[in-house]
């Protein structure tokens, strides 16, 4: 085997960075892989015009420049097996070997179907933030942000910073649920401070509770949306609707490796022990993969996995911090639990599978994802069911089917990459 590392880390967000930092301090030879060009993941995504967020600005260059860390940007894992990964970058594909693997590939947005959600101008809420940071023109654009969770506030702040006119934030959770949560917030002073700071940044932008976007309309491009709130239905004209209903763990890689999963509501996450180890002895999972926990949880659990994978003890303080951060995550989940009406927004003719244009009405009467796929092509497009599969699971239709290689659409040449040692690892 030509290229081999003590520890390979997939994902360079807070979890992956913390894991790399901890493992490299113990002298491990580490590879840090990420599909994006810059480290930081989604929560610490680098802004083309404003750079990394403050906390990330110091930590990221430190980790990437550490002598023990090989940084592999714009690199995707196509296939995974015991001790070996098939990876692909812009130019080539190759196998790399690992003794320990740390999964830190985070989460994606839960994007749920409603009439008009396929119109240009409609994006996810985290998507709006990601697009703004990659230089998407927002100056003077009239934006509505909707869905659920604290990400809506962060997206609004980023959009405002980029010159957008944020018309309002429409949160599906009830006013009572948010107030209950606010009363508990003193237990997490860092979070209370963050909330207060966001409030200041968002001064003047309406924040409405118990409100849901029923539909988006326009000819070829978004022109207006219908919102149902506590005071009835209203229509708003806007240029951009950013709507996201929280996050779902990116479990496909863990699943391909055979890691045991558990369900939190409709969506699976990876089961780990107290050292972040999965059911596979040399594979660790961290942060969002183990249940949506946010940036702090990701950093702490990444660090824990980095220590453990390097064969060191996990500092006791980290375990305490993890408990505290996970309690906060649980409080968030309770507060922003989705109202049942969110699952009934899609109408019979609303497209569920955006890749293959499959409407909801075509998906009734199928027992599982596989039979729906065979009959309708639902989930067979380029996203490999990442959007429609998670949506159907949330809507209560059926859980996603297990992934098959390649994990992402890959070049044909990649799939033909010869094994360095045909005796072991993946069989092509």
């Amino acid at each position: 085997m030509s290229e081999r590392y003590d520890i390979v880390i997939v994902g360079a967000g807070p979890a992956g960075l913390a894991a790399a930092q901890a493992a490299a301090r113990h002298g491990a030879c580490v590879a840090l892989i990420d599909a994006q060009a810059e480290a930081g993941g989604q929560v610490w995504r680098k802004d083309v015009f404003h750079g990394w967020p403050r906390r990330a600005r110091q930590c990221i260059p430190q980790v990437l420049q550490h002598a023990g860390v090989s940084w592999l940007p714009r690199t995707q894992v196509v296939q995974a097996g015991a001790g070996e990964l098939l990876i692909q970058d812009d130019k080539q594909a190759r196998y790399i070997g690992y003794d320990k693997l740390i999964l830190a590939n985070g989460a994606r947005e839960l994007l749920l179907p409603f009439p008009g959600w396929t119109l240009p101008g409609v994006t996810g809420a985290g998507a709006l933030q990601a697009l703004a940071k990659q230089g998407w023109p927002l100056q003077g654009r009239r934006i509505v942000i909707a869905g659920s969770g604290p990400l809506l506030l962060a997206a609004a702040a980023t959009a405002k910073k980029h010159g957008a006119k944020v018309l309002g934030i429409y949160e599906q959770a009830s006013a009572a649920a948010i107030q209950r949560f606010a009363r508990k917030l003193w237990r997490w002073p860092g979070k209370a401070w963050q909330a207060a700071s966001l409030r200041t940044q968002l001064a003047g932008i309406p924040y409405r509770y118990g409100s849901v976007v029923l539909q988006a309309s326009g000819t070829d491009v978004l022109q207006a949306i219908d919102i149902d709130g506590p005071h009835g239905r209203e229509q708003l004209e806007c240029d951009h609707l950013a709507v996201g209903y929280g996050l779902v763990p990116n479990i496909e890689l863990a699943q391909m490796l055979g890691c045991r999963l558990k369900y939190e509501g409709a969506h699976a996450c990876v089961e780990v022990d107290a050292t972040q180890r999965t059911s596979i002895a040399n594979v660790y999972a961290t942060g969002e993969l183990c249940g949506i926990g946010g940036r702090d949880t990701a950093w702490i659990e990444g660090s824990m996995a980095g220590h453990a994978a390097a064969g060191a003890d996990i500092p006791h303080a980290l375990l305490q911090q993890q408990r505290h951060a996970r309690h906060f995550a649980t409080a968030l989940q309770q507060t922003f639990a989705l109202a049942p009406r969110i699952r009934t927004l899609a109408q019979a003719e609303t497209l569920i599978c955006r890749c293959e244009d499959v409407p909801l009405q075509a998906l009734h009467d199928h027992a599982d994802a596989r039979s729906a796929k065979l009959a309708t092509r639902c989930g067979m497009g380029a996203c490999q069911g990442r959007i429609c599969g998670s949506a159907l699971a949330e809507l209560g239709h059926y859980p996603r089917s297990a992934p098959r290689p390649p994990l992402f659409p890959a070049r044909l040449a990649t799939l033909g990459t010869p094994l360095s040692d045909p005796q072991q690892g993946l069989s092509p």
Partner: protein
Amino acid sequence: MSDVRVRIHVNGHLLEVPAGISVAAAVARLQLPCRRSVGGQWRAPFCGMGVCFECRMRIDGQAQQRACMTQVRNGMQVSTDE
């Protein structure tokens, strides 16, 4: 970092944009969608992070590239709706 500008071609039109932005962000400056769905609908970036593949287009001769995952480079040739 945003002072540096690069020139790319989008559907044959020359476009000057800040260095480091994504191809998706460059195409958005022309208010163009990215592709047509199998049913003929216009589509534009949706997830912004490489998951949904709605922003796929031809970049420097390679089809089906995710515009939100690709940074602009001087002389880049981009074509939408293929």
